[in-house]
């Protein structure tokens, strides 16, 4: 399958010596919904920056739809729409002007995007804000406008850097639906996030990035299967020490009265575990089955939480 983005041995060392990327390799096929998952400072924004032309690579290459982002930057950049993490706009102009300018910068005659601009304003609920300047928008509206504008030149690839950071639940769901639809219609979408839920819900594949390195790549389901952290969570009366002793041989973690038993197929072990604990004189107040999340995968691969 043709590759939308191909990253080879990409390194970035910032002036001042910070090594943001230690030689990463990534392939994103056309039409994929791809997630770059990692904590702040992992190298996500640097990877996006080099791909879009905002940051110069120290070494290595990035190709976008077969075009090198340095030597053939015009062709490469035409294929990309970027919704950056920060919401910074040219504050002198109305949304309508900014939409026209952005189309023009991409070489699309502003007159020919009038219809498309109106359609995007409509889809993102900004029809009545067209004549307004960005600073008069709320945070959520700014995010909507930013994503709408990144689509004005109808790029093959949409890159979103933390698109749902700081937006309310309603808008988050609206964006998720919209992005899923765009992807179904054929756009390649690459998003960076440190919201595990977002990656699990939307992405065909994710790469886990930490400390400037790709730790692993795969579909959320495959990653979860490969790092099974399923288990039972018992809430016990008291400190649970007796219960823990009764479960000798299981992989356990205990926090106060909460005992987590990591075991594959936990649903088949409920009776056995509860019996043992009860026989030891402990009282089970609550019991839940825990299914492995990307958060668990991240934790077991990197040794730390994604929010750390």
């Amino acid at each position, binding site marked *: 399958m043709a590759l939308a983005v191909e990253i080879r041995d990409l390194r970035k060392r*910032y*002036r001042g010596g910070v090594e943001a990327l230690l030689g990463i390799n990534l392939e994103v096929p056309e039409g994929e919904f791809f997630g770059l998952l990692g904590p702040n400072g992992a190298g996500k924004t640097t990877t996006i*920056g080099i791909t*879009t*032309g*905002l*940051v*110069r690579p120290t070494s290595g290459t990035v190709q976008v739809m077969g075009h090198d982002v340095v030597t053939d*930057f*015009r*062709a490469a*950049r*035409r294929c*990309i729409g*970027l919704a*950056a993490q*920060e919401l*910074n*706009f*040219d*504050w*002198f*102009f109305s949304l309508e*002007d900014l939409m*026209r*300018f*952005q*189309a*023009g*910068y*991409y*070489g*699309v*005659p*502003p007159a020919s995007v009038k219809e498309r601009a109106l359609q995007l304003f409509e889809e993102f609920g900004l029809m009545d804000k067209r004549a307004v300047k960005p600073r008069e928008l709320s945070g959520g509206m700014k995010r909507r406008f930013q994503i709408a504008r990144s689509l004005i030149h109808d790029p093959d690839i949409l890159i979103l850097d933390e698109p749902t950071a700081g937006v309310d639940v309603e808008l988050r769901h609206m964006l998720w639906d919209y992005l899923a639809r765009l992807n179904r219609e054929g756009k390649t979408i690459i998003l960076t996030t440190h919201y595990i839920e977002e990656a699990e819900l939307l992405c065909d594949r994710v790469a886990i990035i930490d400390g400037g390195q790709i730790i692993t790549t795969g579909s959320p389901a495959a990653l979860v299967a490969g790092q099974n952290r399923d288990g039972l969570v018992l809430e016990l009366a008291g400190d649970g020490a007796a219960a823990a002793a009764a479960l000798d041989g299981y992989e356990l973690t205990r926090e106060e009265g909460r005992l987590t038993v990591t075991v594959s197929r936990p649903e088949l072990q409920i009776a056995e575990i509860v019996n043992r604990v009860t026989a030891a004189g402990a009282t089970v107040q609550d019991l839940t089955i825990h299914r492995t999340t990307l958060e668990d995968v991240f934790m077991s691969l990197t040794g730390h939480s994604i929010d750390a």
Partner: protein
Amino acid sequence: MNRVGFLTLVGREVKRFLSLYNQTLVPGLLTTVLYIIVFGNSLGSRIGPIKDVPYMHYIIPGLAMMNVITNAGANSSSSLIQAKMLKFLDDILITPLGGLEVSLAYILGATLRGFLNGVLVILVGMAITGMSVAHPLEALVFLVVVGWTFGAFGLLVGIYARTFDNIQMLMNFFITPLVFLGGVFYSIDMLPPVWRQISLFNPLYYMINGLRHALLGIGDTPALGSLLVSLAMAALFTVTAATLFTRGYHIKE
């Protein structure tokens, strides 16, 4: 070459300064009127004609050039530093516009603001003093070339600068003295010999006297020489600014 992108960015630059006309067009006109009234009218009668030209007429080319220089320089420098500081420069850097195209678009926008200011000052000067223009075409050439020169200079400043204060300092400590010492209000023949020699090293002296020749038919230096000095400065600043911008100096990580 991304022609549509280039023209869009030029259009953005022009629309920006036109929408800010209270800061970009009106102040120059106002100070010009004040200079003509105060210097031309009240002091001029005591200074008397220079090279057979009334003092009130004599200062108009200098005032026009002063406005071209400060406005062109301010346009590209402030536009770029705003884009850098408010971080919307990224909106341009991610597009298929090369560093040369972005540089030339900023310079051309600045040139147009400088040119427009110069023309307005000359028209106001003509209206107040009744001066007529000796070589109109030559005047237009000087206004464009000098506007371009300082548009490119302003871009260079905008690239280097990290804050607005950097720009203000450069204007106050560098451009303003050079403009005043370039003979806006006097002929260097009126200076002591040492200062006359020093003035010859001030490129603005050639630009001001070039326009003076175009407007009044007189000047301290031949017009062609003035034009060549201006063109050389324009080329120097343009190449330097465009090269730095393309390399991403103070622009990209």
